[in-house]
């Protein structure tokens, strides 16, 4: 089920949350809405879900070519997973997951056994077998999130919408769930749109990244494309660490920490290099980070492999030649 978002505007009082936003989400893709707080990404997600409505005007939301702008949220066939799970506190896990099925009108409502089977199937899918009788407060954050997902999937949605699904979780749990979500998506192939402010998450997880800022879409593309070919300073800076070097006559140059090379001072080549002094060294990790002060007074951060660092046997205070990789 593809999603077409066309010319959507949304204003809250005097505040413009979305300005002429258009976007195509292909069927079966896992797309990230990435941006800082206030960029409009959650508002857009909620409009797609039907929890908010776009301003009157030319704006349209289409599911597989069908206009769903006037369709109430309950009838759009979307599964929505909230940042803080929004599980029904007084119901068991099984009752939570079965909720969407239990509110179906008489003729469509499955029988008790059918519902129980479906709950079991979904719990298996999210790897939470046997937890039917537990209550939300007896579960860990990661478990709650998976129950929320199972609940959303119970109604066989055509589109899955996730609002900062891992925002409220610990770093390690977040990483694990991220991996799990990617695998899960590859298995079931449901069109998924998720909101995040974590660029690492967006780049790692998604088929396509939509970078948003100040109520507009800045850039859309595959993770590799958006990272390597950012179309604006904002996108560049938002998607990873960046060094901004002034090059005289008012121009600036953007370089990623791994695009700068560090060589022995003895190998200094005046055509390509600048001298720099190591101010700080951080090497507890897979990659080493150096903070350098260049001879012209500017500061840069350089990333190099641990191997390279060991080979150079660098220490705080050392002088090195800093080579900017040619574009």
């Amino acid at each position, binding site marked *: 089920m593809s999603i077409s978002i066309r010319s959507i505007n949304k204003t809250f009082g005097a505040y413009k949350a979305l300005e002429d936003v258009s976007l195509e989400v292909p069927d079966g893709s896992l797309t990230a809405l990435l941006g800082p707080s206030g960029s409009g990404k959650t508002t857009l997600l909620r409009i797609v879900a039907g929890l908010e409505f776009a301003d009157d005007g030319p704006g349209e939301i289409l599911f597989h070519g069908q206009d769903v702008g006037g369709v109430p949220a309950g009838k759009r066939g979307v599964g929505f997973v909230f940042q803080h799970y929004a599980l029904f506190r007084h119901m068991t896990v099984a009752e939570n997951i079965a909720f*969407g099925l239990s509110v179906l009108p008489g003729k469509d409502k499955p029988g008790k056994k059918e519902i129980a089977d479906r709950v079991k199937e979904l719990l298996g899918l999210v790897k939470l077998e046997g937890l039917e009788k537990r209550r939300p407060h007896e579960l860990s954050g990661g478990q709650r999130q998976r129950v929320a997902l199972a609940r959303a999937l119970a*109604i066989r949605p055509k589109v899955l919408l996730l609002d900062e699904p891992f925002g409220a979780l610990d770093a390690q749990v977040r990483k694990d769930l991220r991996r799990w979500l990617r695998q899960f998506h590859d298995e079931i192939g449901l069109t998924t749109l998720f909101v995040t402010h974590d660029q690492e998450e967006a780049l790692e997880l998604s088929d396509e990244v939509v970078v948003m800022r100040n109520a507009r879409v800045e850039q859309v593309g595959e993770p590799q494309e958006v990272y390597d070919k950012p179309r604006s300073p904002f996108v560049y800076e938002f998607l990873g660490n960046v060094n901004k070097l002034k090059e005289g006559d008012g121009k600036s140059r953007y370089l990623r920490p791994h695009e700068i090379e560090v060589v022995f001072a003895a190998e200094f080549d005046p055509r390509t290099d600048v001298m720099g002094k190591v101010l700080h060294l951080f090497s507890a990790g897979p990659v080493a980070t150096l903070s350098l002060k260049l001879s012209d007074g500017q500061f840069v951060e350089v990333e190099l492999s641990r191997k390279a660092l060991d080979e150079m046997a660098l220490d705080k205070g050392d002088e090195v030649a800093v080579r900017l990789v040619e574009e």
Partner: protein
Amino acid sequence: MENRSVTTETPFVKWLLITSAVVILTLFLLMPLFAVFAEAFRRGWEVFIASLHEDAALSAIKLTLLAAAVSVPLNTLFGLSAAWLVTKFRFKGRAFLLSMIDLPFAVSPVIAGLVWVLMFGAQGWFGPWLAERDIQIIFSLPGIILATVFVTFPFVARELIPLMEAQGSDQEEAAVTLGAGGWSIFWRVTLPNIKWGLLYGVLLCNARAMGEFGAVSVVSGHIRGKTNTLPLHVEVLYNEYQFSAAFACATLLAFLALVTLGLKSLLERVTGHKAGGH
């Protein structure tokens, strides 16, 4: 030197504060309560029972129960609707509605009763209109009920609004996306989450409904055996120097207060227990 944290007082200050609290509590709460029971039983158990069985007393009790039986459910309904409206939606006039809900608290009970007399009394705005149709509101049951409903209006709403505000609308929104309709959402998602707060509000509403004096006094006309609620009857008896009888009826109200307090503590313990479970 004992090991104590920075936030505790010296033993002397602690002792002083606790003693003051106990003295004030005793003077203003315990002694009057004790006095009510002491006076009620002064002339013995038989007189006590007889006072309560007397016709006027019985009809006063009945009237009090009736007033509560009508106003509590009504205000529960109003309170639920108002709280639902105010916490789940944003609309023009919301702030106004919120202050209106608090109005009965700000208004003196006597005024609360007087407004009904001014509207529906014989010389009131609707006086002639009602007289034509032979409808009696003031100095009759409807007036008493109106006055009681007015003064007990805020209790349920005020209890529910902060509770529902704090709970947010996430669960309701989740239910919406899962396809539930308005009634389903209210019944299966909202209500279970607020049940203890609701009970608490109903309890307070009931206590006030049964104990209200000022507003009901103005609209009732004090017709013995007809339009006297229990609190009014107590005043009537006292003014006739029937002290034991007056205090006997007062013990019923005191008893109601104790039961209310007991249930309130019970509820607090239950909800505290639940909150700790998260």
